[in-house]
């Protein structure tokens, strides 16, 4: 469905988005996942840069980090509250949703599209 500007595509009403629950559109043959995370809308091509898995069908989870104390002793692992990853359900590659970069290997980067919020609606722009 075309938006009011050329190359913008209506996704849905903003109110339809539920935190961490992607919705999907097909734009010019490309499946795109649109997901709301911490009040920010992200649009990602549903194809993992590793093996083309359906990355937007995977978990949205917080990055796991290890806490070291001042003596470099392991004080346990924790889910980092400010770092949210989208995880490819095929092979588990984790991508920082903000930058689209794989946390384990920066050579893998998601194809992110611009997500635009206007008049209570979400559009993506190719």
């Amino acid at each position, binding site marked *: 469905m075309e938006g009011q500007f050329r190359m913008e595509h209506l*996704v*849905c009403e903003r109110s339809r988005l539920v935190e961490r629950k992607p*919705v*999907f*559109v*097909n734009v010019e043959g490309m*499946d795109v*996942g649109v997901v709301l995370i911490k009040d920010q809308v992200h649009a990602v091509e*549903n*194809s993992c840069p*590793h*093996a*083309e*898995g*359906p990355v*937007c*069908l*995977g*978990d949205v*989870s917080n990055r796991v980090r290890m806490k070291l104390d001042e003596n470099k002793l392991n004080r346990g692992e924790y889910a980092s509250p400010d770092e949210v990853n989208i*995880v490819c*359900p*095929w*092979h*588990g590659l*984790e991508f920082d949703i903000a930058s689209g970069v794989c946390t384990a290997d920066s*050579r893998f980067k998601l194809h992110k599209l611009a997500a635009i919020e206007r008049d209570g609606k979400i559009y993506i722009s190719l």
Partner: protein
Amino acid sequence: MIDLNLKDNFLDNAEKQALSRGLYDIPIMDADCHYMTTPMNEIAEYLEEPYRSRLRIYSGGSTKHIALDLGDRTVAGRMKSMPLYFQSKAPENSAVPKEIHPLMRANQKLAIDYSIVFPTDMLQLGLNPQSDIEVAIAYGAARWMTEKVLPSDDSLKTMLYLPFSDPEACVRMVEEFGDKKGVVGFMVTCVRYQPIYHNSYMPLYKLLEEKGLPLGFHTASYWMEKPLHQLNRFLSAHALGFPLYNMIQLTNLVINGIPERFPDLKFLFIEAGVSWIPFLMMRLDSDFIYRHSDAPLLSKRPSEYMKNFYFTSQPLEYTDNMKHLESIFEMFDAENQLLYASDYPHQDFDAPASIYDLPFLNEKAKRKILGENALKLFNIKEPVLHAKNRREQELREMASNRR
């Protein structure tokens, strides 16, 4: 908006890959995929007492005959292929047993025409110290496989489990099942401690050689094994365990001159990727030239025997410099000796594009690795494009239902 969900669309991108690369138009054979659990109650019915009762799973219990490995294979649920396999339900009218049905669906999307199916749980059966139980499970599973699974669909093949703790029982297995439809070889699961070079196994190798049936060695990483027990992460045990047990079996095989004694017996090493192969070639060759008297049957370097062995591709290692992988492929003549394997539905499965997209392979080499090498090794003539046929049948049925 469109509706995409894990259950229905998990492998849609694999189907798109196959379509865009023309993979439905070439024969693809998957040399290793799995159903997860042996149906113990069903295979028990093929056995006499007391084994029939010993194998049955009673309500609320388990067989206790196969040790389960430790560790979280799905990384806290992040990797979905195995959970989806378990959630999948076969329809009432399914032609294939319910354990196999999810693989048929996956094969259609992965453009796989033929599959070697093997039970995941039995990869650890070799650690059971009760030899008669190993023999009973192997026999019951072979009956179920040859009577219920393989006749149900031409695309299904298997390498049957050998109860390796009993060499004579292994021979009986090959004699009874070696000529059954769809049995294309026999399998040694690698996490075990029987000496594969012992004289008691020579009749088995001779029989397999005479019948032209390949002998597979399927490795695993069993975290509770002593060498792996020092590793505190599943990642570590998984990375080292798979090549480790293939290396141990292959080393014993070569250094004891089994290929020299049975030159027409074909060996296949399964599920350790490919990067260990050059390592082992170079290590064995280096020691061999210093101590030929330790391996008196060998008439050439270990690596030269290894170049006649077959290997499966999965999990194909990722490298940012394709020259490295290209060199590895050259070292063991991958164009002729490598067989594509998916390992589906295990969490580190590879789609056929993992081979097709390698930039250093020409079209001929890609087709050989994806299908032709396996079809030749397993003596499958005039292959049928099962995946393409199934997909087109489904599309026709969908169109018909819409009318």
